[in-house]
């Protein structure tokens, strides 16, 4: 099986929904397009042998963040029709920035030349990453956990309806 084909397929799966997102004015659809794009990215992570990252991507992004975003849309739109649509503005300057950034990054990447994968082992790395989390990066791991807790409490507090 030619993995190149797989890569280009998944890349298209990532890129095309994004292009759709640029042009659509419907937030709900764009969120779903975003979900597709995320799934494509997860597949690309698998291609890169980053299985844990792929799983996390699907769990947190596709499963968590997307739901959060949809709830956000729902909670802030009163009318059924107008609520999910949005407008574009400063299109020209946005387009210029988009093109300028793209040109800069692409030219930078192309200029940097090719790196060879030679000598790099491609194997399942979940076990290794798990050990790393609980040894070398234990402090960061715990801190992130704590941070998530704080973020949870903070978000609940902020979203709570005020008394008045």
């Amino acid at each position, binding site marked *: 099986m030619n993995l190149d084909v797989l890569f280009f397929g998944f890349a298209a799966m990532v*890129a095309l929904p994004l292009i759709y997102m640029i042009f659509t004015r419907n937030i709900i659809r764009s969120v779903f397009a975003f979900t597709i794009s995320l799934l494509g990215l997860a597949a690309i992570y698998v291609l890169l042998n*980053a299985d844990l990252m792929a799983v996390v991507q699907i769990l*947190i992004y596709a499963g968590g963040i997307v739901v959060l975003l949809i709830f*956000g849309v729902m909670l802030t739109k009163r009318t059924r029709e107008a609520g999910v649509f*949005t407008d574009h503005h*400063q299109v020209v300057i946005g387009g210029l920035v988009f093109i300028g950034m793209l040109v800069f990054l692409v030219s930078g990447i192309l200029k940097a030349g090719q790196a060879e*994968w030679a000598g790099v082992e491609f194997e399942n790395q979940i076990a290794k990453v798990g050990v790393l989390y609980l040894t070398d990066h234990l402090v960061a791991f715990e801190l992130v956990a704590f941070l*998530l807790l704080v973020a949870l409490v903070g978000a609940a507090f902020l*979203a709570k309806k005020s008394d008045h």
Partner: protein
Amino acid sequence: MAVPLSYYLLLAAFIFCVGILLVLIKKSAVFVLLGIELMLNAANLNLVAFSKFDPQLEGQVFAVFSVVLAAGEVAIALAILINIYRQYDTTSLDKLDQLKN
């Protein structure tokens, strides 16, 4: 596995630029959040791609942290968004122009 590193990087660059574009042109705050998530994803892709060269897998480790933080960030951002909506009755960023004065 013949797809070179630069392809991944190019894809990440594209995702990143789309993220910027969404942040700049969409009036909806939810869209802007989407754009920010895209930019984070672009960075994650870069990290994972580069961590191929790293036997210590620092890139992957960092990318997972980044994902987790992004989740937290979205939660907080949405909470703020809801508050803003309660306050101003809109989430359209072009209406939130108190900075003008």
